[in-house]
């Protein structure tokens, strides 16, 4: 594990530690968006428990050597949820905590949407939805051609998977039986304008992936124990591509942001900011 202090912990202790890391990340997420008075808190808060467990317990990465060729790849395809990624990259030591102040600031390394040209530890320049899974197939094929053990993880949003290119990629990943390709789907039921249900009904998301031949597992995306087990399942499942469908709450951890489409892409005002800090125990 990247964080050596987590080695050898029992399950309960590990879950406690991870929840604490996620809490600190949530504070940073809200601070980034508040400082910039712009950005995407909702999808950052829904994904952060997943990112915390993934980075802390599973990814084979070297924060001091971000371009290490045989690192596992992580692609945040829903690139607007960058505050979540920057927060965990800072926790892992890829970037400094002070770098978080450069979020959306001219000349800063933390761009509005994750960008591999600007931020150490970012493997894909996202921002246009529906592109990360195809890119991930390329990374997974490269790993196979290199005879490498490295795995590729792609995080998608539940609005994002409405893009047709995602379905082209789902088909291709199965066609090529990419066992080293793993998707984490952040199902927070909200997209930009409104709830997914009102924008484009998806019916059974698990059934859709199953019918494309993927291995599918559903979890509660805020239950750390289920997340850690789910991620292990993803890694160990090497017969064809796998998707971990995480049921989450958009804005999780800040009461007025939870399940509120308004906080997909809006910053809190001063009063709301104070309230968020209080709720997150800052």
């Amino acid at each position, binding site marked *: 594990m990247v964080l050596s202090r987590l080695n050898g912990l029992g399950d309960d202790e590990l879950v406690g530690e991870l929840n604490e890391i996620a809490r600190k990340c949530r504070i940073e997420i809200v601070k980034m968006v508040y400082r*910039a008075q*712009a*950005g995407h808190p909702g999808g950052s808060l829904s994904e952060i428990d997943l990112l915390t467990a993934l980075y802390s317990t599973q990814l084979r990465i070297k924060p001091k050597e971000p371009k290490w060729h045989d690192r596992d790849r992580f692609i945040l395809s829903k*690139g*607007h949820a960058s505050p979540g990624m920057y927060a965990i990259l800072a926790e892992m030591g890829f970037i400094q905590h002070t770098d978080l102040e450069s979020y*959306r*600031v*001219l*000349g*800063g390394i933390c*761009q*509005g*949407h994750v*960008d591999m040209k*600007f931020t150490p530890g970012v493997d894909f*320049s*996202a*921002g*246009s*939805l*529906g592109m990360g899974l195809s890119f991930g197939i390329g990374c997974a094929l490269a790993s196979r051609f290199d005879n490498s053990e490295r795995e590729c993880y792609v995080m998608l949003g539940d*609005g*994002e998977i*409405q*893009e*047709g290119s995602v379905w082209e990629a789902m088909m291709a990943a199965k066609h090529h039986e990419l066992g080293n390709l793993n998707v984490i789907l952040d199902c927070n039921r909200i*997209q*930009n*304008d409104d709830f997914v249900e*009102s*924008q*484009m009904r998806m019916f059974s998301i698990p059934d859709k992936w199953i019918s494309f031949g993927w291995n599918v597992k559903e979890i509660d995306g805020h239950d750390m124990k289920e997340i850690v087990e789910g991620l292990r399942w993803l890694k160990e499942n090497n017969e064809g591509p796998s998707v971990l469908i995480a049921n989450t709450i958009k804005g999780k951890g800040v009461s007025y942001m939870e399940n509120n489409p308004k906080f997909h892409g809006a910053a809190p005002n001063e009063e709301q900011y104070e309230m968020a800090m209080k709720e997150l125990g800052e």
Partner: protein
Amino acid sequence: MNMTELAASRDGYGNALISMSGDPKLVVLEADLGKSTKSCWFRDKFPERTVSCGIGEQNMMLVAAGLASSGFKPFASTFAIFTERAFEQVRNGICRPNLPVHICGSHGGTHTGTDGSSAQSIEDLAIYRSLPNMVVMHPCDDVSTEILTKKLLEIKSPSYTRTARNKTPRVYDLDDSRIQIGKGVKLRSGSDVAIIACGVMVSKSLEAAKKLSERGIEATVVDMHTIKPLDEELVHQLASECKLIVTVEDHSVIGGLGGAVAEYLSENIPTILRRVGVRDRFGESGQAEEMLELLKISTNDIIDSVLEIKEKV
């Protein structure tokens, strides 16, 4: 021209949809960015004539084409950059059969806020200009956007209109009769140089002209809201009157307004020209005004370009 009120051109698009709603053939399509492009105002009032396409721009463009082929008048919007994802659908499914689908790309250019380069469309005018049958517009304020959008109902071909995210000075008074598709508007007259601008750069050009006047240089400023068909008559006239031309756009210097004007001039009336625009690079995160400075398309850069070519003659 008051230039004291601030408004965003995307609001003009939202207003136009509402005021055209009396036409029963009008339909509005969105791809999960209605709150941003302002088609949401229409959706709130006329949900039965608003088609949600989810986050699926390619699908949206061809759904619009099908509606147009059946006699409807579809207006489809998303961010300028995400219309580009459906470029080939627009090319083959809309422009080739010449179906009157009206596309609006909001948040165009680099004047978009802090989202960064993935959201900054600096090539939309160029790529849509390259398509046969396509009308391409980039109005400078909410008033002209509303007027021009409404006039689209009169044309038989497809169109692309770029609007901007941020509030900028309102250039026109309501009901300005000079605003016609395909006709540039002379906002200021001067015989030393002609500045031809579009979009958010029109008010910047007027600002530059004012400062140049303090230095004894009188500039004509034209709002060339229609990039295609280009108002060639006006460009010709400006070239013969002023001898020097500067184009200004929040867009790549390749293929947009500057490209269109350069093509016309060099084939018909060779004239000294400077193109103020993005010099073949991507932007990054930053405030809108910071971005104009970083990319060298601010008011001062317009002034510098004018001074530079003045020196040439």
